[in-house]
């Protein structure tokens, strides 16, 4: 078994709402190994986004625990958790919403470096420009504000920011869902390229089976807060075991002739 990076051990998350308690995540166990991409698929309300936040330690688990490289995230004091943060970064569904609107593109990418006091201002600038170039943003536009970029470019900036601290783990929550087909393809290519070049470990969340199939080494399927099936990508798509997985797969409408 390869080296394990982050592990969720039967985590459960219960939200209290006006209508009563909602069990968003129910006894889920998942592991992401070093250098591996774990895909997580499910429909809206299946709890997949909550899993992402639990594994990032952004929300406390109601029960169960998340262990990142030997550290139980629920037990760490806030200060030590912040020290651990650079090692896990996140890319969100809505790129515009996830960028700081009052910071320029380069300001956004420099911000995590500033927070963790990496280098001086000049070296942070240089590094941010390299990163923008890496994700395919013309560095002439580095001083523009997020709203002046298109959705696809905003997502590239968000990815550059997530990479700035050279994280071990990249958690992507529906990073292409708000993008048009042709832009989605560009971003998927970018992810494939970055993963090959930087050896990233990823937790990649999407409702789109095809996107997950393309990027993931292993896939977990979630339904109503539970993981109903988990297997290597090829196995899952060729021989799905769980009825829900089969239902999902049969609902897919092909574009090209079989």
């Amino acid at each position, binding site marked *: 078994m390869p080296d394990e990076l982050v592990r969720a051990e039967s985590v459960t998350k219960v939200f209290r709402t*006006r*209508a009563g308690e*909602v069990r968003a995540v129910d006894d889920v166990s998942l592991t992401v190994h070093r250098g591996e991409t774990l895909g997580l698929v499910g429909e809206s*309300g299946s709890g997949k986004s909550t899993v992402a936040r639990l594994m990032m330690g952004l929300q406390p688990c109601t029960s169960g625990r998340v262990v990142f490289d030997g550290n139980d995230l629920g037990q760490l004091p806030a200060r030590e958790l912040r020290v651990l943060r650079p090692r896990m970064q996140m890319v969100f569904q809505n790129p515009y919403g996830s960028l700081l609107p009052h910071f320029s593109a380069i300001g956004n990418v420099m911000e995590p470096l500033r927070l963790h006091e990496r280098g001086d201002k000049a070296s942070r600038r240089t590094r941010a420009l390299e990163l923008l170039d890496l994700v395919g943003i013309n560095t002439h536009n580095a001083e523009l504000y997020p709203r002046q970029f298109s959705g696809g470019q905003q997502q590239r900036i968000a990815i550059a920011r997530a990479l700035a601290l050279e994280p071990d783990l990249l958690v992507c929550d529906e990073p292409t869902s708000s993008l048009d087909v042709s832009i989605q393809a560009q971003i998927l290519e970018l992810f494939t390229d970055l993963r090959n070049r930087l050896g990233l470990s990823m937790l990649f969340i999407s409702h789109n089976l095809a996107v997950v199939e393309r990027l993931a080494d292993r896939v977990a399927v979630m339904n109503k807060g539970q993981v109903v099936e988990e297997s290597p990508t090829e196995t899952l798509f060729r021989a799905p075991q769980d009825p829900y997985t089969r239902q999902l797969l049969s609902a897919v409408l092909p574009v090209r002739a079989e």
Partner: protein
Amino acid sequence: MGLAVYIGKRLVRLVLSLIAVSILTFTLLQLAPGNFADLQRVNSGATNFGGVGTESMVGELETRYGADVPVWKQYLIFMKGAVVWDFGPSYKYASRNVQDIIAEAFPVSATLALLAVLLALLIAVPVGVFAALRQNSKTDHGTMFVVTLGHALPSYLSAAFMILLFSATLKLLPSGGWNGPKDLILPVLALSLGPAAVLARYVRSSMLETLREEYVTAAIAKGGPRRTVIVRHALRNSLIPLVTVAGPLLAALMTGTVFVEALLRIPGLGLYFANAAASRDMPLLMGTALFFALILMVTNLAVDLIYRFLDPRIRTVGGVSDDGH
């Protein structure tokens, strides 16, 4: 959550808030420098307040509270009275009880406030809808300019201008006093301008927002006549939230007629309150403050209940929501 439980909770909160208001007012007023008797001695040369002797007043004060009663006990005695609608005699208007003054003066203020809000609604709804339907036209901009005027000027300033125009120049209306129906015109007009401006602005933007909703487009796509779609789909939905604005405005007006009352010499409750503050008439001050707070809270509660009734989304919350969103 059932309606009864909701109302129950709100009533408990209302009582707690009233107690807090009473403690706050009472404490603050205890800190106030100078008392009624001192003030009367200072002013006795200058003013004449109905020939009632100062010493007899202090005597009455002592019969109510007893000599040297500690402050907290005074508060309790006051509240014991307040619960059964007995605030005791006023200092300034010594022959009368505070509750009698309220009973006599509040209807004056309430009449003004109700008429003003009604007038404001009558002006604001058509104006707001009209401006929204002609968004960005000259009519729209012109209307909104006038609305800003109404919004910016406090009621007493409008009243001052109206006195100048209708009383001093045209000599059509009396410049103050409270003798007949003619005396209602100026204050009601002056009081309604501000609320009319606020409401018109609200109606306009609410209407604009609703007109942009996809369900209005969908209704037009179903072949709905323009007028029907505007009234049934857009207007209805934009006026529901109006309740939440008009209610507090009414409440604010019920207690906020004071400035116009002062300027036009109308014997409303606000005027009594202001005079009570100026002369340190503690029972009257406490009584009116509590009464105003009560009016404000009851109005707000009523507004929330009406809103719940009007909007099915709130009315039926927890009813059928079997599948989350």
